[in-house]
């Protein structure tokens, strides 16, 4: 058993081995690969759409695309880079699909009958309920609204840089654009946020 301890501990296995194994049809390896990164993907999606249902849709679409595309993945980039690039693509296209739904969810702030469109914090986060009690509800509401005013790309760049802490050059790779373009998005997003939160900032 001892010599195989490392094998059984998937967390210790590097991405390359997991990918190669998943390419061979090992579902367990694919699941481990998912579990290594999915919290981050879900987090980006949740911040980006702020609706649990939309975030779940994005999560699922991202990993189904990964599953379908894994056979063609040739290690030309880090797996994480490839994954986050897919995530940003799915976020941007998803936003375009469900724009109406997201705004109604954000602005009206209520659930529909079957719970769809519930605010993310209501359904997925227990911790947030505790944290939320400690922060100013008005600030959160205003920040939500301000984020809703940003264009999809501005919002994505702002989310990735400000809340997820990615460097601008990483975001540029994820979004397949130049670092200069990312800077522009970040700058415009920041200007809009300042404008939207003017009353709070004064």
């Amino acid at each position, binding site marked *: 058993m001892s010599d195989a301890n490392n094998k059984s501990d998937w967390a210790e296995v590097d991405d390359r081995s997991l990918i190669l194994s998943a390419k061979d049809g090992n579902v367990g390896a694919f699941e481990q690969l998912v579990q290594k990164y999915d919290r981050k993907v879900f987090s980006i999606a949740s911040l980006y759409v702020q609706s649990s249902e939309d975030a779940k849709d994005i999560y*699922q679409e991202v990993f189904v695309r990964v599953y379908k595309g894994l056979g063609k993945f040739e290690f030309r980039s880090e797996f994480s880079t490839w994954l986050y690039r897919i995530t940003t693509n799915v976020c941007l296209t998803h936003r375009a699909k469900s724009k109406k739904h997201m705004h109604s969810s954000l602005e009206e702030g209520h659930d529909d009958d079957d719970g769809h469109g519930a605010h993310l914090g209501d359904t997925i986060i227990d*911790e947030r309920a505790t944290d939320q009690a400690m922060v100013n509800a008005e*600030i959160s509401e205003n920040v939500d609204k301000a984020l809703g005013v940003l264009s999809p790309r501005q919002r994505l760049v702002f989310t990735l840089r400000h809340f997820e802490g990615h460097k601008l050059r990483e975001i540029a790779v994820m979004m397949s654009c130049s670092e200069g373009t990312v800077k522009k998005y970040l700058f415009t997003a920041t200007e809009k946020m300042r404008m939207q939160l003017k009353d709070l*900032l004064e």
Partner: protein
Amino acid sequence: MIKQSVREMLLLYLYDELSSDDRRSVERLLSTSAECRAELDGLKKLHQTLAQYKPAVVGDRALDEVRGELRVAIRHERLRKSFTQTISDFLAESVFSQYKLAFGGVATIAVGFLLGYAVFYSPMQENNSLFRQTSSGSTFDQSESQLMNVRFLNQSSDDGSVELTFDAVTPMHVKGTTNDPRITQILARALVNERNPGVRLKTVSAISDQTKLQPSTEKEVKASLIAVLKYDQNPGVRKEALKALQKFPVDDDIVEGILFVLKNEKNTGMRIAAINFLDFSKLSGQSVDKDLLGMLKEKMQSDENNYIRIRGNAAFQEVRK
């Protein structure tokens, strides 16, 4: 009024995205320009405000939920993928490998016919052919293909054009013994893809009845059984998978599957079967996975079932020897 380029630099300064030279330039500017300092203060205020905004933190429960949904989606993907793949593999192995030369000749003749058809057919014939296909309810009626998941992508009332996608499923008939690697491969895939739990149960039983597994399929069968053991929604199928796994020598994959069951299985009977599965006396004196030890300790102390606690305790002592 500060230039936009300077405001951009100040923002990048705050995010620590400047080179050391640019950073020093900004610091020099800040030491001389009150306007720039005010601008930077404004940005800092925004950051302080955003710091009070608590974005949602992804919880374990939500993550488990989406992982479950993903598993179902992946299963459907595998179903789509493996169907065509299995059939083509099957045909390739059973027919084409034996008659490669003859098949090559037939393929060449077929290409010749196709070329001739492409060169000499008349548009009238094409229209008639198309008409026959559509008016007779499509060629799918003539074959045994079943159409499912029809989705309209586009429909125009102006010219009557429609664009749609669908899945065409054709029933296949395969006969052989359960020791045949090709049959085993189909069974292994059916195990994780089939929606009907009764069929899955039957599939596990068929695998379980095999007298000897071929090395070429053993790995896939074992992986499928472990996947079923861990994730199948039906406890009867999970239990049958555990039984079928007894045919395999216990290795790390199986131990990992058993640990998963002990940790996550809600069905007490399954947990008991799982803890009984491993012959702990054989593990005694070996360097045992720390996960296994930790799990046994946890079971010994906290499982709601008395038997599992006692058994966990005994196994823990056995392994520690």
